[in-house]
């Protein structure tokens, strides 16, 4: 006896996409979210690429805080390099966006329960058969044919099933972001700062959110997080560059920049999104990759359940398809991220200096990469391929 065909744990973009693709094919689906609110707190810079988003849906004005047509990168010695294109992307209102994704899943029949904290799995004959959870202090359990772990960076559901999901310090960014008001910036530009000064092993971002608001955040690579603190660096940065900015909210967060886990399935279980470590390891972007992962997981759930085999073998299409859609590119990106990690501030400055001599109109992505490649030849091919594929 099962209560549901599919239980999705976690109500982020990956969970909502999984619930949508399972429910839309007639599977009885429920999504459990531990927080009281879908999409809040927003632990995200909220940047999304136009091309990536359109693979799933057309951008809707109510989700969009700003439309981005320009990227500025600043080298450690503050040489700005601009890149323009009218197809770059958006800064979302993720609270609204995540609601919309969850609502889209419920419109095809998925149930949603918030304040439902999953703290155990029902495991029988070495297969996952459901979840235990707490709803407002009350212990409950639900049985299902399949569980999809979309529980974000924590990824405990996988561990409960015996999948090793814990992440190395080298592969996580320890991040802090302030959403600020009263900041004067170009509303069509995203601004990045690299180098040890502001962003040890990562980058600092300033993303516009309309009406003089912005997300200002920073990820420090885990191995350096002992000596550098993202909270302190963001506040120091704001004080120096935007002393009039006011705090509207702040969040912490971990961005997994590892390769996708080797094992993303078990008997009766699939992991997706941040929980499976699907984030783009160069940009730290995980909305689109999580949506891809969730969608594929839902589709494979439909096939496996109708074939009556939800064992690892019955789910083998899942890692295969993820690899095809995001995975190959993901591996390349991971290689790049390992290389970028080694670039010194001096090299970054040299690259920026060289680029700043090229007229802006000639500053194509390829030119930027050529400059990078002169310092680090082996990444040229990888970078070009990666960005062409994103």
């Amino acid at each position: 006896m099962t209560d549901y065909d599919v239980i999705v744990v976690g109500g982020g973009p990956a969970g909502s996409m999984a619930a949508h693709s399972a429910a839309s094919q007639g599977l009885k689906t429920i999504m459990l979210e531990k927080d009281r609110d879908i999409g809040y707190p927003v632990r995200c810079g909220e940047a999304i690429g136009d091309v990536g988003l359109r693979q799933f849906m057309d951008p809707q004005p109510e989700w969009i805080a700003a439309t981005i047509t320009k990227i500025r990168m600043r080298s450690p010695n503050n040489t700005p390099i601009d890149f323009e294109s009218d197809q770059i992307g958006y800064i979302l209102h993720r609270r609204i966006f995540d609601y919309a994704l969850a609502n889209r899943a419920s419109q095809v029949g998925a149930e949603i329960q918030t304040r439902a904290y999953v703290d155990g799995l029902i495991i029988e004959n070495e297969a996952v058969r459901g979840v235990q959870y707490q709803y407002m202090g009350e212990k409950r359990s639900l049985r299902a044919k399949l569980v999809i772990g979309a529980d974000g960076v924590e990824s405990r559901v996988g561990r409960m099933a015996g999948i090793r999901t814990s992440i190395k310090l080298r592969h996580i960014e320890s991040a802090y972001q302030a959403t600020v008001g009263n900041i004067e910036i170009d509303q069509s530009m995203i601004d990045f700062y690299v180098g040890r000064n502001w962003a040890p092993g990562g980058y600092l971002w300033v993303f516009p959110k309309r009406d003089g608001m912005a997300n200002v955040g920073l990820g420090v690579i885990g191995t350096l997080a002992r000596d550098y603190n993202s909270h302190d660096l963001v506040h120091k940065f704001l004080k120096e560059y935007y002393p009039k900015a006011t705090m509207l909210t702040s969040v912490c967060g971990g961005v997994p920049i590892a390769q996708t886990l080797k094992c993303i399935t078990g008997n009766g279980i699939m992991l997706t999104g941040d929980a499976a470590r699907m984030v783009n390891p160069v940009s730290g972007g995980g909305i689109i990759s999580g949506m891809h992962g969730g969608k594929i997981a839902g589709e494979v759930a439909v096939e496996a359940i109708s074939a009556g085999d939800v064992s690892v073998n019955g789910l083998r299409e899942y890692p295969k398809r993820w690899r095809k859609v995001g995975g190959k590119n993901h591996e390349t990106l991971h290689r790049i991220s390992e290389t970028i990690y080694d670039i010194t501030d001096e090299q970054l400055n040299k690259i920026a200096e060289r680029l700043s001599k090229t007229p802006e109109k000639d500053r194509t992505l390829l030119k930027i990469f050529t400059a990078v490649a002169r310092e680090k030849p082996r990444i040229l091919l990888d970078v070009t391929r990666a960005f062409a594929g994103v």
Partner: protein
Amino acid sequence: MILVKDNRCDFCGTCVAVCPVDAIELREADISIIHETCIDCDICIWVCPIDVLTSDQEPEGKND
């Protein structure tokens, strides 16, 4: 032993992600260390973006 500073945690899960033995329990607004499981490796202390965690064993940690 890992200690959690009062009224400081943002419940972001970064420490949970790196814990090698799954010794951190995190709900919507509640964090606790499962001391029986914890191996005192201290990496949760380093990775926390706002220095919520400390150890009673290593006074020269990041937070002091």
